[in-house]
């Protein structure tokens, strides 16, 4: 009977382990640049180092009770690159297709305020100029965009 009881407890713990993994949100314990991307994340690893650049010099990673970066706000000049990097595939798809939510987002972070139809046609027609190679990085794409637009 005690064996049964012990086995039951072990079983229950195993079950709950399986369920508990939903507790850990892999996107962030805290903050953009910290503990954000689990090892097998599809977001490029360079994004992690990029975000540290965002933290203004006066702020630093806290230690102690919170253990988090205090500021998760993406600074303006890096908004476009961060967006392009975090949404690499989806943005490419929207650009190839001439429309989409990610394209709208990209327009917003590059401060484009005009007609989205025209914007869509522009990026679609210039797709190979924006992404000349398979290895074109998001920041290169943004630079290409600035040059073209």
């Amino acid at each position: 009977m005690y064996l049964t009881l012990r086995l039951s407890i072990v079983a229950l713990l195993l079950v709950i382990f399986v369920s508990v993994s939903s507790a850990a949100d892999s996107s962030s314990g805290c903050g953009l640049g910290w503990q954000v991307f689990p090892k097998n994340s599809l977001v490029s690893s360079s994004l992690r180092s990029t975000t540290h650049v965002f933290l203004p010099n006066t702020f630093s990673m806290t230690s102690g009770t919170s253990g988090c970066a205090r500021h998760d706000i993406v600074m303006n000049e890096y908004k476009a690159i961060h967006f392009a990097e975090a949404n690499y595939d989806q943005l490419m798809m929207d650009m190839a297709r001439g429309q989409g939510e990610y394209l709208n987002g990209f327009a917003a972070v590059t401060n484009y305020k005009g007609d989205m139809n025209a914007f869509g046609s522009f990026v679609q027609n210039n797709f190979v100029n924006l992404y000349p190679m398979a290895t074109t990085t998001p920041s290169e794409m943004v630079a290409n965009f600035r040059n073209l637009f």
Partner: protein
Amino acid sequence: MIMAASSEAALYLSQNLSPNLYSDPYWLKLLHFKKGRSLAKGKDFFLAPQGNVDPQAELEATVKAFNDPQAKIGTLKLHPQCIFIERYRFLKEKGVIETTPIVCKDFDFWKKGINAKSLTLVFSTAFPNDPSSMFGHTFIRFNQNVEGKNDLLDYGANYSAYIEDPNPNPFVYAYKGIFGGYRGFFGFSPYYMKVNEYINNESRDLYEYDLNIPPENVERLINHLWEVYATTYFNYYFVDENCSYMLGDFIEVAMSKWDLTTIARPFYLPSDLIKKVMSIPQAVTDLHYRPSLKRKFTASLSLLSLEQKKELKDLIEEKKFPRDEKNDQVLDSFLYFKEYESRKNKVNLQGKNQGAFREALMARASSKEKSAELVIPLKEENRPERSHGPQRVSLGGGFDKNQAIMKGTYRLGSHNQMANDDGLEKFSHFEFLSLATSYAPKGKKFKLEEAQLIRLISLFPQDEFDSRLSWTAGGGFEKIREDSCQDCHRFGFDGGLGKTFALTENHWATLMLGNFAEYSTHFDKNLRMGIWGQLQFLGKTHSIYKYKVASKIKTDVLTKWKTHYSWENTFCQTLFLKNNIELRMDSKWWSRLGAMTQNTYEHNLELAYYF
């Protein structure tokens, strides 16, 4: 901890502090004070030494700190006014503080970045085939105060446990998760990162509930989140003080009249938060459905003709080059497929892995035609708040070969493949701690027949583009029926793998093979181990009725297979009535091949209630 300032401040305090302000519900809410102590654990959150158990001392210490120009708090060494933004606002409103507000650069920068006008509560559904996500998840999005805003660029906030070890030992993980061994934090990130994580990486749907919270109340929540963010953490308890409970607790700071955290049972589910919010009149102004990547792919498929589907398959099987594909819709489907596949297999589509994906992108862009927006409507029956409560209780009766029996069951959680799956994944099954008792009028015998610990069943209908296996695992204490013994029980565990085929959208067939291990004093050597195989048909109609027809053969391999070889046939039906009540009929027949005289059967009818 801030030492007492001048006696002037003390005088000011006693003159202006209305009696019992420290027991003002809002003050207690800001301290997250429940059952005699604060839920917050980080010491920087408290200005008084016993602030976590003494709201009065904490209030007095807070006022003194605000009045002390030299005071500095925590690792950031900021003035208390720049940390405890919401406490300051509250005390100023009550006339307790009259200091001039100082400039708080950090907080201002942070708050301006979030730029919040309103709040949206987001629910992510369970991930198909992953029981650990079966309860879903909740987090919030701060909608920016911008004309024509893009949701992706809003900031989201999320409460989660910080797990230091990237690969924790499962038992340590479970133990710490249940008993508060992990710290819980609020984290912020641009919403597009949350969308990536759930929609794209995990193929979960998002339901976005716009909350009717005025901007000045949203501001209070932001102020308070800063207070917590800058100083403290909580103990994360998977069962009750989890992502959803804590989120509810914090939303109550914005809307004090809303009760989002009171619950009768010992655990709190993400869907509970949604149900509570939906039950408050006018709390939700709109619901927006954000389908997963998998659903987008499926929707794009439905736009293709048979001929076009063949072209898609040719592209996937690399029998055709994307550059030779002229049809935009086929290319769009192919792009979605490559995206979905890369997420599923966790392979990056960047650099040298781009291959066919890039070729398809270039082919698509060269057509210069824009894609039509994919329209994937929200199905009302899938709304998370429609799900039944996790607990189940039933009363019924039945008969077997020997006698009539009355039965009563209770289950702690959570959902069964034969129950109404509105608001849940279709035919999902995750049950734990189910008890079944019987009472036989003939012998006046009351018995505990079953105590099922856990049962998980994950059915994944095969399609041409995704062929995941279905599986099951579970076990517990149960009655032995396939043997001649009338009152024997065993402790058993089993697991299995198989394939499911959707004969139609709502009628599935599953073939599974598995193994089992059982312990019982009734057995010859107390132990049986073996294999089993099952064919099952499961179907539903219109959220009113479900049926299951199944046939299972099981054999013990520790003895000659002919000795303990049983065949179990099942026919089960459920009729869903109003108000979370169901009527279930369950018939089972057991026989032992080679010993047909030992056939037995059991027929049951029960009325069940979910809560």
